[in-house]
């Protein structure tokens, strides 16, 4: 039986179970922490850096989704420093690739776009990168548009952890990192893809989408994946 511990979140004393992350405990206690890579039912990656929080006694911000709570820990989920860093992380996601919301199939249903609105981001202070990126349309049912990818790795995790196929990986380093299927072959030629579409459903942006969707038409049902994960827990 896991041990119950006490932590402070924004001054409020909270009971947590050892092994839970700051993100989970904060959420269970009604605190809003923004995130683009976290998804209930999948492991945590800490890739989007939007859930950064302050932990007393630690001289730098930590991602709430990958930091486990410890007894006596005191966490601040919002401050000027946190807001400044979150906003900057969000702006850099926009500058890194070509997020043209107006002509995106996910316009109006995109977690990146919605988070910008929630955090009141109405312009990006840094110069845009305008990289030249491919769009993989080789799969009969789905499209991978690298222009919209934020490398959150939800697709990598859902394919590995829920579907068990592990089609996706992130190849390359830094700004050259790219999502690849089957050791960097076109998605349509993948031997391991089961065409289940879970990666499409969990993708927060218009990077993984269904074919044949026009602008604003791509709605996603990522709750299905969380439900699947929960059901599996019950059966195991």
């Amino acid at each position, binding site marked *: 039986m896991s041990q119950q511990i006490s932590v402070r979140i924004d001054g409020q004393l909270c009971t947590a179970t050892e092994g839970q992350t700051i993100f989970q405990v904060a959420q269970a206690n009604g605190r809003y922490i923004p995130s683009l890579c976290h998804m209930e039912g999948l492991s945590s990656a800490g890739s989007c850096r939007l859930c950064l929080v302050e932990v007393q006694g630690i001289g730098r911000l930590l991602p709430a989704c990958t930091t486990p709570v410890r007894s006596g820990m005191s966490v601040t989920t919002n401050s000027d420093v946190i807001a400044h860093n979150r906003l900057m992380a969000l702006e850099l996601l*926009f500058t890194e690739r*070509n*997020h*043209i*919301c*107006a*002509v*995106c199939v996910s*316009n*109006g249903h*995109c977690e990146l*776009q*919605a988070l*910008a*609105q*929630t955090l*009141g981001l*109405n*312009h*990006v*202070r840094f*110069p*845009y990168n*305008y*990289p*030249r*990126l491919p769009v993989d349309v080789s799969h009969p049912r789905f499209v991978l548009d690298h222009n919209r990818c934020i490398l959150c790795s939800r697709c990598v995790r859902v394919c590995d952890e829920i579907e068990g196929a592990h089609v996706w990986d992130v190849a390359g380093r830094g700004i050259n990192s790219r999502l690849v299927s089957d050791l960097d072959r076109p998605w349509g030629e993948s031997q391991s893809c089961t065409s289940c579409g879970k990666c499409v459903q969990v993708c927060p942006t218009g990077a993984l989408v269904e074919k044949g969707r026009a602008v604003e038409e791509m709605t996603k049902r990522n709750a299905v994946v969380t439900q699947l994960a929960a059901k599996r827990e019950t059966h195991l």
Partner: protein
Amino acid sequence: MTKARLATMWLDGCSGCHMSLLDVDEAIITIAQRADLVYGPLVDAQAFPDEVDVTIVEGAVSSQDDLEKIQHVREHTRILVALGDCAVTSNVPSMRNPFAVKSILERVYIEGADVQKGIPTDGVPTLLKHAIPLQDVVKVDVHVPGCPPSAQAILFVLNELLDGRIPDLKSKVRFG
């Protein structure tokens, strides 16, 4: 009471933001009572006036002509508003940015043309390497994203500015 001097400008955009401005419907009458529209595609003025209180700019900066216009506007305007995603993020015009200007022009005017193949040079401004947001070249005082921004958002911005406040848009607007 002296009326505020309002101008609008259209750079590399589709005019959709100006359409959205007109979508404020009858509220345009109350705006007209408080401000004179002294320049822009909606009026006949030929030259940009020396002193303007508020200039609303639609579109990205894509050509040498756009660049000169926006720099001139900045010099003669108290408050510069970037209206819409093209002015704020460079949006659709920026979709050419990953490609070299020469290759785009060749694709359109040589490979894509059936008659009179050739890149036009007379009477058209030189394209910049990239279509860029206004803030990359001039100081922008108010950013109003949206494709287009809603009429309500534009009306809110105009009323706040005419009341002497810089509008705080927070979550009233969004990209796209």
